[in-house]
């Protein structure tokens, strides 16, 4: 599995560039390359549904981010609240790394998953649902209410964006 290591190193490099570069538009393009790397990683890890989904979602969010940050550049300094900010960053990183270390000792080794309920899905998914794609069988049949709730979350987000971005009532004074 050398290719997944290479893809992850590429993603980490692009993420560091996206965090540290001064120009906002370059930063947005770098985060797009992180998303494309994630899509390649899904393809290597045998998840073609997620590869298609991640690629398409990445293109849409990249277009909207470029529209949002176009010609709005500003230099960012790190003058104010320097001490508090640094201590908060170090504290949260230590908390996260401790939790990650504890989780890493208890997790199963890479490449040998413990199949719990998904053994039932793999064995009987074909004759119970008739769908040859097991992921589609799970999202549309076994856990279809989950999928409906996901659509409701999307609808709530659209309603919220329309409420935030409306023009009536905001521009009345100016």
């Amino acid at each position, binding site marked *: 599995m050398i290719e997944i290591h290479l893809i992850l190193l590429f993603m980490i490099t692009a993420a560091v560039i996206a965090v540290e570069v001064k120009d906002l538009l370059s930063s947005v393009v770098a985060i797009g390359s992180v998303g494309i790397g994630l899509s390649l990683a899904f393809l290597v890890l045998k998840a073609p*549904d997620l590869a298609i989904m991640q690629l398409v979602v990445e293109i*849409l969010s990249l277009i*909207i981010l470029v529209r949002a940050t176009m010609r709005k550049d500003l230099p960012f300094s790190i003058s104010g609240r320097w001490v508090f900010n640094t201590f908060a960053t170090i504290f949260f990183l230590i908390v996260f790394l401790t939790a990650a270390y504890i989780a890493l000792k208890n997790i199963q080794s890479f490449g040998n998953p413990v199949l719990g309920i998904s053994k039932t899905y793999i064995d009987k998914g074909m004759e119970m649902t008739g769908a040859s794609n097991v992921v*589609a069988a799970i999202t549309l049949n076994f856990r279809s209410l989950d999928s409906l709730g996901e659509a409701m979350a999307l609808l709530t987000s659209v309603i919220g964006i*329309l409420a935030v971005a409306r*023009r009536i009532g905001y521009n009345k004074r100016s």
Partner: protein
Amino acid sequence: MNMHAKEEKGMTLIVKTVTRLTLGFILLYGIYIALSGHASPGGGFAGGVIVALSFVHIMLAFGKEVALKRLHSNMLRFSIGISALVFLYIVMVKFSGGCMPVNVFFARSISCEIFNNEVTIPLCQMVIVSAGMFTTFVALVLLSKTDKDAE
């Protein structure tokens, strides 16, 4: 063409011609991805985002007047509402424990499991996602336009 006044909006002539040629194929590909999700990789959400990207494609190439004339915002709201109501109907069928309303409304030969799950849910997901994403994009572009006017 009679679009000399609008030739200034949007991108160049090459981009407009290529957009006009490839638009139908992108729409068709999105619908194919959404409808064949149970047999091959894909699904309702990926297909919906591809359909929304084709509308975004029109909007980037031709400017916002042409895109909004072709797909009015009232129609977007109407399709989102209809799809949400169909979802509500599916949930009510599931909770009532059977497929009784399906057999009242449609022919008895349709198997209700297949009808409910593998055609209706991806179609509604596709309509909700595409209409929602395009509405979001239009709202954000209009927001940035007012920002540019304010400066």
